């Protein structure tokens, strides 16, 4: 399959090489189970494969069939048709990393535009071309802060309001370093001020989220001031869609902004691929890992773009590089660039407001049911936490019978929150569906 060779081609080629058979080309391999029998299903044609895989896809119940209030870092948004139609252009998706700028200006300019729009959205000075996802972006922020102080500061403070998966990822990344992680066990309902007493002269980074995992929107100005007083850096993790409405984290004085870009037109696709956003201040640009595109000129005087600052990277610095990152999420950065260009200034604001209003309507309706209560008094965007009269797991199971995906059971990630549901509402959910959810909650909580 996918081989253009005819028998005559093969024979002619073997003759040119000077061997008799394909097997002869493998003469250097150790004679241990050479040419093993591979126990895979026999190859199939496109028709057969599509039928088979459609069958597998049909075994899933999708957010198209179920009414989904699941968020927890991944959100059910609409992807405009334009985004996928651009992503499907072979010139974009079958190209490699743009090492040869003369024939890669499409990818390079698209990434440059992506970087620019991330800067506009976050209020920072510079963005890289992306990391793998929100979790690895946060881990790279930890890595960057540690190297910024040349290893002389080893404490990193993680807010309990950072996504549990992101915190787990950071733990995995730093296990063999002398970095100590603190702050995760501060009471989650205490707010960002509770992290201030932990900041000291050994602190490299304070990492928080905006909105945080519980949906809360905090003003981080005081926390940033306290951190900067101790000369520590602050990284704020964002949902970029929320920045269509909310004050950009640059205004709080953040040194690093990380983000999960999935909400910018990228399908949920059962967990990925997504888009790790990473932006920083001018003075830290050279400490930032990952690919960066810069503007320049070609020999004909035309404005063009190249990968720049590559001496920070592994292919030049090898073991002295601060990160091993090589591939980024180029195609997803393109998706975000198309999405943001299309919605633009007014579209993104409209969408953010739509999410805000729907979530607030849902929160009010749910909080008015007997026994249910909004757990966060703080500002929230499109996601909020509800204290329930029953265990969240029990409620979710019952809600499935109403074709509702109820929300994230916070007990899975936080001790003592077994009766807390994290509920997200996006533009994909209508008022009727919210009302259906509220009625279902009434019924299942009384049952």
């Amino acid at each position, binding site marked *: 399959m996918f081989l253009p060779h005819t028998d005559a081609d093969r024979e*002619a080629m073997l003759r040119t*090489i000077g061997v008799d058979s*394909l097997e002869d080309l493998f003469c250097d*391999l*150790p004679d241990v189970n050479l*040419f093993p029998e*591979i126990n895979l*299903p026999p190859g199939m044609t496109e028709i057969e494969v*599509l039928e088979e895989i459609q069958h597998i896809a049909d*075994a*899933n119940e999708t957010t*198209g069939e179920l009414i989904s209030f*699941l968020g927890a870092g991944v959100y059910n948004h609409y992807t405009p048709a*334009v985004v*996928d139609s*651009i992503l499907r252009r072979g010139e*974009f998706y079958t190209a490699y*990393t743009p090492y040869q700028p003369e024939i890669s*200006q*499409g990818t390079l300019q*698209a990434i440059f*535009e992506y970087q620019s729009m991330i800067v*506009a959205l976050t209020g920072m000075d510079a963005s890289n071309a992306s990391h*793998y*996802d929100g*979790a*690895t972006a946060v881990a790279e922020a930890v890595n960057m802060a540690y190297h910024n102080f040349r290893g002389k500061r080893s404490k990193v403070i993680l807010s309990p309001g950072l996504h549990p998966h*992101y915190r787990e*990822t950071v733990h*995995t990344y730093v296990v*063999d370093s002398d970095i100590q992680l603190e702050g995760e066990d501060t009471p989650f309902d205490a707010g960002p001020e509770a992290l201030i007493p932990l900041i000291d002269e050994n602190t490299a980074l304070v990492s928080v989220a905006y909105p945080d995992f519980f949906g809360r929107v905090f003003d981080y100005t005081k926390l940033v001031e306290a951190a900067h007083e101790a000369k520590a850096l602050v990284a704020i993790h964002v949902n970029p869609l929320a920045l269509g*409405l909310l*004050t950009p984290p640059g205004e709080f004085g953040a040194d690093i902004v990380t983000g999960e870009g999935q909400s910018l037109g990228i*399908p*949920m*696709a*059962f*967990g990925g691929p997504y888009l790790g956003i990473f932006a920083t201040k001018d003075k830290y640009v050279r400490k930032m890992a990952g690919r960066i595109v810069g*503007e320049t*000129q070609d020999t*004909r005087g*035309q404005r063009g773009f190249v990968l*720049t600052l590559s001496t920070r990277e*592994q*292919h030049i610095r*090898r*073991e002295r590089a601060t990160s091993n990152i*090589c*591939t*980024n*999420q180029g195609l*997803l950065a393109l998706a975000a660039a*198309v999405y943001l*260009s*299309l*919605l*633009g*200034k007014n579209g993104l604001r409209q*969408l953010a407001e739509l999410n805000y*209003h729907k979530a607030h309507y849902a929160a009010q309706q749910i909080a008015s049911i007997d026994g249910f209560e909004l757990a966060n008094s703080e500002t929230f965007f499109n996601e909020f936490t509800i204290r329930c009269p029953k265990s969240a797991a029990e409620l979710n199971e019952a809600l499935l019978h109403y074709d509702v995906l109820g929300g994230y059971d916070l007990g899975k990630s936080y001790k003592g929150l077994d009766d807390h549901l994290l509920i997200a509402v996006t533009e994909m959910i209508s008022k009727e569906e919210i009302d259906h959810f509220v009625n279902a909650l009434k019924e299942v909580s009384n049952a």
Partner: protein
Amino acid sequence: MPDLSTSLKVEPTVFDISSPGRQGHYFPKSDVPQTNLPKGFVREDLPLPEIAEVDVVRHFTRLSQLNHGVDTGFYPLGSCTMKYNPKINEETARLAGFAKLHPLQPTETVQGAIGLMYELQEWLKEISGFTGLSLQPAAGAHGELTGVLIMRAYHKARGDEKRVKMLIPDSAHGTNPASSAMSGLKIVEIPSDSRGNIDMDALCAECDDTLAGIMITNPNTLGLFDENFKEVCDCVHEAGGLIYGDGANFNAIMGISRPADIGVDVLHFNLHKTFSTPHGGGGPGSGPVGVTEELAPFLPGPIAAVLDEGNAEEPPLFGLINPEKSIGRVKAFHGHFGVLVRAYTYMMMLGGEGLKAASEHAVLNANYIQARLRDTFTIPHDRICMHEFVLEGHWDDALDIHALDISKRLMDFGIHPPTNYFPLIVPEALMIEPTETESKETLDVFADTMIKIAEEAHTNPELLQTAPHNTPFGRLDEVKAARELVLCCWFPEDKEE
């Protein structure tokens, strides 16, 4: 604003074509009562571009036309396996039954998706000989980091804390030492011998009780299968070290040799190379990690598993589990699922025999080009190569010509250059990997072009030094980019000033 009048090839940026009041996509009016916007948290301005839908489409379409991709022409970029990306992959990955799944849905609603992950795990294990496998890592370098963390965790779990030395051949990709350094290991570089194999004396001298392991790419980055491989494995294993296999070059050995059978303990796959998922202009990739039985408990979770075998009436029940001594997550959720669907589709199309044929023809194609260019270029390690080979892009009687000039001249003929200046141990290296999906005619055009360029190098060197000529852009000034560091377009308000 830059002067765009000089050329039609320069596409203005999205900020350049923005006009206040335009919008490319609209949302329905809110059907719920309005809530007051959050006091003190509403941003004042949002400096994003404002463009109509048609102009967004034209802008990005025109940008795409400035790119070379596998779909537009030959792409023999060494070590990157730029094979054809089947269109069917793009269809299956976009099926609503996959694209519209939330990663945290109850497992009973996503049995198809977890089942697909399980089967892909089994297939990758079958073709590599490993016992355990995690699909979580997001890319090759991410898989390397995962593998190295697994090796360290394994040694530590045995109470063997002093194993902090990682051996890395001098031909290795830069991610190998960088990944090892990220996990706190001390790197010792091992030279290559005159046949391009690992130097055994240098290797054995480093095999002591501080050895964590060795990271080997085999076939190596010279495109050669290391003839000492078995001895290398024995030497490292005897010292208590582990063998890390960089699967970047797995496309040479599918169905021919299984890494686990010949001594590798842990290996990452590059689904975006070997298993035909697109490179996307630099991602997304996917870097699953396979390991032997003793390392399996350390894999990152979650991993797809059969929780209940099922029976004649009931299908098996799949679930996600965490291995008992797991190093922990290396990213959020369960890996690049959309990429996994593409790789799964590809493996299903080819089957076991098809994968073997893919590797055989990848090696055939590389050897054919090597044979055709042998008389024109210096090939530093002239043996049967695997799926790629390295030649020297210079001649003693044309000293002003460098590998880069050859590369840039190739663009004039619609061919993407090979990998330049890598591996570092070959002067003026050009690393050529044709892949199996290219026809003899394409290979012949490439070989003929290379021979023609070699002639030009001697008769008209300036033609190479000033190349490319037929591309939309000439050589770009990297020094200017690095010194002036413009990383972001102007915002609309800047233009008004």
